[in-house]
């Protein structure tokens, strides 16, 4: 049941993406116009056709346009083609891009994506894991020190998260790259790239400092604040109170009476955070000139490269559906109140 529901929502989500990425078929018209223009320039610029009468030239242009449209499948109505996209997307047949190429020159969407993946994962795994565990431990710590100066400072700083990471990115670039000249403006490695592995890693690390810092500045305080409040609410539950009355040491109380019962929530956050890395961050990667999936998305949108947009989306959708499915199973393992079984569905 749960699997089916996920599959249906996956299908709907993907179709919407296809529809939106093509602007409801409008992209087809743009591309048809582009083809006509290109073919026109080609034919009219070709000396062999120069002598032909205008009507003959027009016939040749029409012929070639029709051929090109047929090659790209543009002769069929958009609705039909949209289902073709959907079928290919669902079977993970990512196909070929329309404009973009990988650095190695390939038009395979799979190769284009694979080329960008390490860059995005390196940056976002570092930033997100740092953010996740930092906010977990700081939240726990602050819930213990409720009302302390540090607690008040964190609450006061929480509105900093109203600004996105790239906003702090620009400011950080101004300070550390432009003014102090300590760190690079952007990119992933020095040019030319260092020869040794260690040198390469160090260079990447140096380039990562500012984007990671920008994301941390933007995300940390609100997540610490959220976690702290979450733990505060849970630590006044009746069973925690009784645990305290029983004389359970504070650390064990936190582990067994606060973290254990809230584990499903924490695991969910962690899993969603993990798959969110896949999409990268469009503006942040653009600001830092980071060659990741987020920037690829931006580039693909600019040139209406539907297969690339779709490729990124479909993989994210599959990851999301798979994660949600796995989470259901994990819940049943970590929380005895959840039982997976025939007809149980998502019993809570």
């Amino acid at each position: 049941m749960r699997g089916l529901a996920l599959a249906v929502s996956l299908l709907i989500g993907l179709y919407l993406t296809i529809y939106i990425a093509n602007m409801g078929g409008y992209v087809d018209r743009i591309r048809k116009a582009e083809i006509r223009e290109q073919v026109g320039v080609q034919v009219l610029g070709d000396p062999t056709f120069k002598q032909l009468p205008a009507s003959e030239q027009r016939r040749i242009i029409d012929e070639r346009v029709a051929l090109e449209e047929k090659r790209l499948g543009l002769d069929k109505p958009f609705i039909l083609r949209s289902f073709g996209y959907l079928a290919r997307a669902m079977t993970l047949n990512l196909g070929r891009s329309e404009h973009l190429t990988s650095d190695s020159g390939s038009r395979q969407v799979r190769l284009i994506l694979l080329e960008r993946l390490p860059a995005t994962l390196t940056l976002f795994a570092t930033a997100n894991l740092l953010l996740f565990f930092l906010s977990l431990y700081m939240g726990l710590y602050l819930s213990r020190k409720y009302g302390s100066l540090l607690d008040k400072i964190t609450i006061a700083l929480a509105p900093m998260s109203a600004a996105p990471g790239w906003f702090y990115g620009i400011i950080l670039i101004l300070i550390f790259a432009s003014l102090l000249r300590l760190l690079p403006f952007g990119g992933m490695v020095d040019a030319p790239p260092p020869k040794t592995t260690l040198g390469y890693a160090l260079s990447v690390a140096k380039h990562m400092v500012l984007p990671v810092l920008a994301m941390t500045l933007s995300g940390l305080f609100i997540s610490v604040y959220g976690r702290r409040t979450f733990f505060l609410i849970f630590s006044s539950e009746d069973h925690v109170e009784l645990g305290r009355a029983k004389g359970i040491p504070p650390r064990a109380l936190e582990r067994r009476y606060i973290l254990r019962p809230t584990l499903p929530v924490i695991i969910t956050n962690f899993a969603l955070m993990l798959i969110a890395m896949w999409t990268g961050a469009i503006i942040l990667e653009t600001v830092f000139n980071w060659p990741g999936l987020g920037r690829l998305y931006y580039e693909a949108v600019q040139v209406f490269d539907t297969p690339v947009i779709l490729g990124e989306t479909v993989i994210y959708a599959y990851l999301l559906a798979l994660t949600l499915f796995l989470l259901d199973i994990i819940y049943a393992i970590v929380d005895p109140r959840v039982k997976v079984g025939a007809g149980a569905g998502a019993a809570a």
Partner: protein
Amino acid sequence: MSNDILLKVEDLRLYFRTTKGVLRAVDGVSFELARDRAMVIVGESGCGKTSLARAILRLLPRNVHTYSGQVHLDGTEVMALNEEQFRRQVRWVKMSFVPQAAMNALNPVVRVGDQVAEPLLIHNHVKSKKEAMGRVEEALRLVGVPLDFMTRYAFELSGGMRQRVIIAMALVTSPVLVILDEPTSALDVLTQANIMNSLKRIRKELALTYILITHDIATSSELANESMVMYAGQVAERSHAGGFYKTPFHPYSKMLMASVPTLREDKELAFIPGKPPSLINPPEGCRFAPRCPERFSKCDQDPPAVTMEDGRVVKCWLYTGKAR
């Protein structure tokens, strides 16, 4: 009164910070309790009964304003201990607690048997897990919980069974004092009677000292040796149970007793007009005066705690001339 005093509370105060001001939940409470006795604390909702229990147990919320006074327990001044000493020497070693909200008081993700065993293992009462489980079985048998419940989780148990498990947990380390905060108020009448009977039987078998907090005066009379009536954060009357249930002194106690239904007598149930004063900026003088049928001019000043000839204490101007 016995000389073997187990618990002596002196001028205990617990004030909370609220947005409207300081709330005086427990305002200078003093009492003594001898070993092997059961004391019942009664009073209306919001009179500070539960706060008193929490003050003795040091289970404080985050918005504490004042927490002062002395609590001597079994020869130790526990208020002088720091949190870690208190945890090691007092919590569940000397006194245990059965809370009001038994439905949610068990950890939802730990098996019931393990939870009952937890205090034994923490406080090193046993050498092995196996020995602990033996003690758990003993305790569960005592309160009437089937032993196969040990491997279950709290959500698989009924309210009554959960309450029994918590009582078993409170007994498993053999503490000298058990504080029960309305242990049966969330349960149906049959289960209430069942648990009350178990409590009575266990007390006889183990020679325990109880503090039972309740607003169910009728049921509590079954168990009590001593009674204490609280009103607006203060002690209105303190008495041995016989005297209190037959001839209460304080006008509030009298009216409280008159409101209890009895089966055979054909009496009109009385109620107390008005409502208890706010514990934020309570009125000067006697706190019951605005609702008291016997009030007179002196009631504008705070009444002293008058000790009567049979050791009973009543905080009322009516008795100042009759002190021993």
